[in-house]
Structure formats: structure tokens, C-alpha cells
């Protein structure tokens, strides 16, 4: 053997091969699993995108100024829209937010800061978790018994309160999480500056945790906007724009439910268009939640 051959042989025995071996068992397994997760991810997003696709195709053409502002058409009438339902949904979601957000945030302050380990706190935390899984129609039953029977009429109040019952646990639990994320060292700093406990909460903990709280509120609002069951026998429906809060009120979800079962093409088209608008409203709240949700900590 020549000198050069010797060195080559020596190098071969010393240096392990670092090249990629595509057909090795380990590589094959890895490739297979990666492909599987890809397929699963795509399959999981098919329902979402097909729903949006259907809504845009079927309803997109009817979303115009008339649909957004006009009143619902009667039987064989052409045209018309669902302006009153958009207003009704926004009004009732607004009532729900006005009731549930302050109550929820105050409860979250108690759960996260004031007395996190007390019996009342763990009990209400547990109940809130149970409530998040409650069938939404039960919120409607509650509001029917508590508001409709009391007022003697279906109303925006009753619908709003039913939605508030649904929103409350989400607001409480997400706000509690957000407030708990505020680092202890910031609270220490505030106490060290001579803050009272309420000043620490209002001036430091709430502003710092606000993005998370807003995210929770937005998600709760988005969820409530799409609910139909709790409105069925609380707000009922109305063919006119809302003129006072103590009367039956239209909502998008109930309009979709009513119109999609009718034997008229015009109404069915409007139901598609209303569905698209409802999804867009929910989407806007979700996007707002994302925008506000950048944590500052």
C-alpha cells in the first residue's frame, strides 16, 4: 500500500459518516410522523374553511346595504334585510357586557388577589368552571323564569341577561388568570412606594393585567353574539327595529333559525347573508381580542 492509501484508510476508520441517511429506520419514522401531523392539521381546518367558503358563496352576494339596513320581508315579499336583527344582537350583547364585565372583573379581583385561597373563592371558582360547561339553553330558562315572567313580556333585557349569565364565568376565569399573571415583584414595588391595597389593585395590577382581561371579555362577547338558544324564549323575535328595551327584540341568530326553515328562496338567501354577517361580527371581536391581548409583562 502506498502512503496515500494508508492515510485514506486511516481516515475512513476514524471519521464516522455524518451524511444524512434517508432510508434509515429513524429517518423514515420521523418523515412518516411529520406527514401524519400535517394531514391531521389540514383535516382539522377543513370544517372551518368549508363553513366560511359556503357562507361567502351562498351569502356574499346578498350582503349589501339593503340587507344590512332593511327590515325582514314577509312571506312572498322580495328584497328586505335584517338591519333590526344586527341592532338587536348588538344591543343585547351590549346589555350582557354591561352586566357581566364589571361583575366578572370584580369577582376576578377577589379570586386572584384579595383572598385566593378562601373557601368562598374556591367554591365560586369551581362553580364558574361548572357554568362554562352549562348548556346555553339553561341560561335562557333561567332568564325566562327570572326576567320574562317577572316583567310579563319577552324583552331585550331578558335576552341580555341570559347572555350575561353565559358570559360571566368566561370573564371571571380569564380575568382571574390575567390578574394572577401580574408578577409579585410589581405588587411589591407598589407597596414599597406606599400604595394602599386598593391602589395596588387599581393602579398596578389591573392596568398590567388589562390585555388579558380584555381578551377574555372579547372572547366572551364573541361567544355570546353567536348564541341562539338562550334568546329563543327570552328576547323572542321582532320584525321591527328595537324602540325600547322592554319589548321582544330581533337577533341575527334567531333570524337565521327562522328564515332557514322557510320555503321561500328570498328568506333562505337572507339567512345565508345573515350567517356571514354574524361570523364577521364574531371574527371582529376575536381579532380585537388578539390585538389587545399582547401581554405587557
Amino acid at each position: 500500500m502506498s502512503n496515500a492509501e494508508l492515510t485514506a484508510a486511516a481516515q475512513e476508520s476514524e471519521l464516522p459518516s455524518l451524511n444524512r441517511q434517508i432510508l434509515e429506520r429513524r429517518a423514515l419514522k420521523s418523515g412518516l410522523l411529520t406527514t401524519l401531523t400535517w394531514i391531521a392539521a389540514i383535516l382539522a381546518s377543513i370544517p372551518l374553511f368549508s363553513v366560511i367558503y359556503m357562507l361567502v358563496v351562498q351569502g356574499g352576494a346578498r350582503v349589501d346595504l339593503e340587507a344590512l339596513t332593511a327590515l325582514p320581508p314577509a312571506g312572498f315579499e322580495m328584497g328586505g334585510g335584517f338591519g333590526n336583527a344586527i341592532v338587536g344582537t348588538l344591543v343585547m350583547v351590549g346589555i350582557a357586557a354591561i352586566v357581566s364585565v364589571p361583575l366578572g372583573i370584580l369577582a376576578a379581583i377577589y379570586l386572584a388577589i384579595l383572598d385566593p385561597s378562601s373557601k368562598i373563592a374556591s367554591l365560586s371558582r369551581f362553580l364558574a368552571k361548572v357554568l362554562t360547561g352549562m348548556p346555553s339553553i339553561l341560561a335562557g330558562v333561567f332568564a325566562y323564569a327570572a326576567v320574562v315572567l317577572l316583567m310579563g313580556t319577552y324583552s331585550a333585557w331578558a335576552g341580555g341577561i341570559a347572555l350575561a349569565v353565559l358570559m360571566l364565568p368566561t370573564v371571571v376565569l380569564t380575568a382571574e388568570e390575567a390578574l394572577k399573571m401580574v408578577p409579585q415583584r410589581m405588587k411589591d414595588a407598589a407597596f414599597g412606594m406606599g400604595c394602599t391595597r386598593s391602589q395596588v389593585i387599581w393602579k398596578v395590577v389591573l392596568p398590567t393585567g388589562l390585555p388579558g382581561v380584555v381578551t377574555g371579555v372579547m372572547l366572551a362577547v364573541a361567544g355570546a353574539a353567536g348564541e341562539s338558544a338562550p334568546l329563543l324564549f327570552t328576547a323572542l323575535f321582532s320584525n321591527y327595529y328595537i324602540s325600547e328595551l322592554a319589548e321582544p327584540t330581533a337577533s341575527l341568530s334567531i333570524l337565521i333559525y327562522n328564515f332557514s326553515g322557510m320555503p321561500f328562496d328570498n328568506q333562505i338567501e337572507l339567512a345565508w347573508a345573515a350567517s356571514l354577517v354574524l361570523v364577521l361580527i364574531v371574527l371582529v371581536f376575536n381579532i380585537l381580542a388578539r390585538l389587545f391581548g399582547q401581554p405587557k409583562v
Partner: protein
Amino acid sequence: MNATPEAALDTAAQFSPQGEVVMDCKLDKIFYGDFLAVRSSDVPIEKGKITGFIGPSGCGKSTVLRSLNRMNDLIDIFRFEGKVTYKGQDIYGKKIDPVVVRRYIGMVFQQPNPFSMSIFDNVAFGLRLNRFKGNIEEKVEKALQRAALWNEVKDKLKNSGLSLSGGQQQRLCIARAIATEPDVLLMDEPCSALDPIATRQIEELMLELKERYTLALVTHNMQQAMRVADTTAFFGVDISAGGRTGYLVEMGNTKEVFENPQEELTRQYVAGEFS
């Protein structure tokens, strides 16, 4: 010389400060629940000086420091027996509001802890808290200048305080603490989370601050105590009673404590024989 606790007590009592004593801590016992954390230690803090607290881990030096503005009150199981007088008033007295105490006796913490708000708002926080009526901009600028941070942040006062580097954040916290002109500034290992350059800047800052404020400094770093402290209090741990109870072993001029300690325990500690 021996290092028995009794002997240590005698020496500790012997330290007689030369200058005016702003805060006089005469603590008898500090408990966490049933646990005796610190016992009989007299720590006078002189006006316009830096008093360094050194000692091994668990000796209670931070506990003692945090007792000086009642920060420990936030811990439910904390119990203080003894007296801490600030300008003659016992801050543990029945009529004392700890919230007001903390406005006169400020604190800088181990971890830089700016609020999640702009640099300006961080410094203005205490002023607004005290409903300061004058020119806030001017006060904020002055505090940032005294904290040696103004030149670095003057063009970005609207940026978040959390966007600064660790050393800058700590100087921001110092600026925030001095904006309301407290009398005494307690610093609990303010450099332990910082790199050497930032540490040196904070140390220089402390030397400037003592012209106007009285400082008490807990530090793990003996060189730091030697560099900045005028008076040094050395705390030890007594394990004779079963638990780990801290106590003041020796207190005196920093030079004396490091070069000519009266106690064997102090000598061993400053010689680096244990930590």
C-alpha cells in the same frame, strides 16, 4: 475572642454611632409563624451614610431590612417584636399607618421591578400617588438625572420601562423611589441580578445618593460592602436552638469590621472561610 451568641450580643451593643441616627432598629424577635427568624439585634442607621448588611444566606439580613419599612407586614405569618424608631416615632406603634411609613422610607428590590408602563409614568407614579401638584416633568427629569439614567432615556420617555436593560431598569427603579424624596432608601441586594458594569454604575450612584438620602444596603458581595458602606452590620446564623436564627454579630465602621473584626465569626466570614 469566642463566637458564642452571648458574646456577640455584647459587642453588638457596643457600637455607638457618631452621627445623627435617623432610624434605630431595636428588634427583639422576628417570627415567621412559630419559626424564630431573627433575634435581638440593635441596628442604628445614621443619617447621610450607607449602612451595609452582610452575612451568610439565611441570616435574616433581608428580613431585618424589610422590617424597616414594614414590607414584611404583607406576609401573613410575619410577627415583629421590638421597636423601630424613625425620627423618634416607633413605626410599629399602634397609631402608625404602614402605608405612610413606606412613603418616607423607600425601597429598591433585588429584581428590577419597573411597572408595565412608560419610563415617564414609572417615575411619575409616586408623585401622582401623593397627589403632587407642581411640575411633574421637572421632578421626573430631576429624579432620572440623580439616578444617572436621564441621558440614556431622555429621548424615549414614552417607551415601556420594561424595554430597558437590567441595569437601566434598576436605575429606573431607583429614580422611581427617589422621585418622591423619601428620607431613607432601603436597598435589598440591588445588584445581585446585574452584570459587573451595571453593578459598578449602581454603586457609584449609591455614593452620590448618600449626599441627600440615608441608605441601608443588603448585599451578598463583601467587596461591594467594602466599596460603598460606611458602616457595616454583620449578621450570623445561630443553630444552637434547633432552627436557623439570625442575629447581629458585629457592627462598626466598615474598615474596622473588615480589617480588625472583634469577633472570630466575623473574621472567618470576611476572610471567606464560609459563606
